[in-house]
């Protein structure tokens, strides 16, 4: 039984192996990009909307509202990063219902890569928002004694991000695989549905946690006026 799509290698050249994780990641990327492009190349600016445009607008507005709600900041700068995290993980998980597909999020490599992205994005956004000096100061708060704990916390939460997503998706796949051998026909389908739910929830959790981490790094001085920002979350892009 294959646990990780990493181990399915389609093509190898030198040190680079083209495994199922990368291939299915590309598939998801292609799907998202193509779908977006098909819809957004003919965008309506009037009151009449195509259904697909409506769907995309609902998605984008929903993500923006979530970001604004969590961060109490303007969602504009964070939308591409956090929104892509959510969309990528959600689509990657949803496609699990297709036979033969293996979610790239079931690979620890993918989740680690995403967690690393978050790990890097947090200081990047923090420094961009507050400046390097002020950002780095928060590692020695409330006292310099806390520095190691802050660093450990930073790393451990990144690891937790990666492992949580990986564990959930991988376990879903594994459970379905095991159940298929024990009670075929009906029960695995229920578990598959449960897996869809789990996949959506994990996508949401991952994106929200990433946003929380970023917000905690950026919003110290902006916490004073959350209400005002919450009232106008869509006025910036």
């Amino acid at each position, binding site marked *: 039984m294959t646990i990780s799509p990493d181990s399915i290698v389609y093509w190898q050249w030198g040190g680079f192996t083209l495994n199922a994780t990368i291939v299915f990641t590309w598939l998801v990327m292609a799907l*998202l990009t193509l779908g977006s492009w098909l819809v*957004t190349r003919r965008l309506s*600016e009037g009151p009449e909307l195509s259904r697909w445009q409506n769907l995309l607008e609902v998605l984008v507005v929903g993500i923006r509202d979530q970001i604004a709600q969590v961060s109490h900041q303007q969602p504009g700068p964070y939308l*591409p990063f956090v929104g892509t995290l959510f969309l990528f993980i959600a689509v990657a998980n949803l496609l699990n219902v297709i036979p033969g597909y293996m979610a790239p999020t079931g690979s620890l490599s993918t989740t680690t890569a995403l967690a690393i992205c978050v790990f890097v994005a947090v200081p990047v956004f923090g420094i961009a928002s507050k400046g390097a000096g002020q950002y780095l100061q928060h590692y020695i708060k409330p006292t310099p004694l806390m520095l190691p704990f802050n660093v450990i916390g930073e790393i451990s939460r990144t690891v937790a991000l990666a492992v949580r997503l990986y564990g959930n998706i991988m376990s879903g796949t594994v459970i379905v695989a095991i159940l298929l051998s024990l009670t075929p026909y009906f029960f695995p389908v229920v578990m598959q549905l449960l897996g869809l739910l789990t996949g959506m929830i994990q996508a949401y959790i991952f994106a929200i946690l990433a946003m929380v981490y970023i917000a905690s790094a950026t919003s110290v001085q902006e916490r004073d006026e959350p209400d005002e920002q919450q009232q106008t979350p869509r006025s910036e892009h």
Partner: protein
Amino acid sequence: MEIDWITVSAQVVNFLILVWLLKRFLYQPVIRAMDRREQKIRNRMDEANSREQEAINEKQSYQQKLASFEQEREDLLEETRQEARQTRSQMLDQAREETARVRSHWMREVSEEKTAFIDGLRHQSLDVVETVIRKALQDLADERLEERIAHTFVRQLHALDDTTRETMGRSAEPATIATSFELDPAQRSTLTRAVHELVGAELTVNYTRAPELICGIELTCESQRISWNLSDYLEELTASIEKAFEPLETTGPGA
């Protein structure tokens, strides 16, 4: 639980590419479209608001115009009413004046007519009375009556006052005795004698006929006149008749 670090780095790159792709193809176009739509809606709302404001202004201006029209109409009506009242009173006054004028004119005519009628009546009655009396006296006139007349005339000469008598006596002109009837010579000498005795001895006396003196006799000398005849009586009668008609003239129909 193995991590393939090559795959990890590939996935990081993949993810960053996906971020860029979605930003390029999803977030930016969708947000731009939504913003433009919102802008359009806002513009339309602004336009609608401005139009509404315009409409309200227009409405207010029309209401003001209407009110001023109403006011003007009311003023005009009031003016017209005033004029009508004025004209009415003027016309009434004119009518009153006209009536009064017509009335006074009529009254004058009536009174003139009445006067004329009364005059006519008087003259006619006088004429009748005179004619009747003349006729009666002419019928009655005979020698005896003429004698009585001469006798009465002599009595009058007796009753003359001294001034008249002297004035007539000094006259160089002859005295003229006019009668309505023919005097016989005896009567003439009686009269001449009476004149000589009572008025002046040197007076020459001529005799003439004067039928207009009804049954009368008249002595004229030096613008003095002594007479007895029925004309005097008739004149007195006329005077008394006119006196009798006077109250009728003064009391008009309007009185």
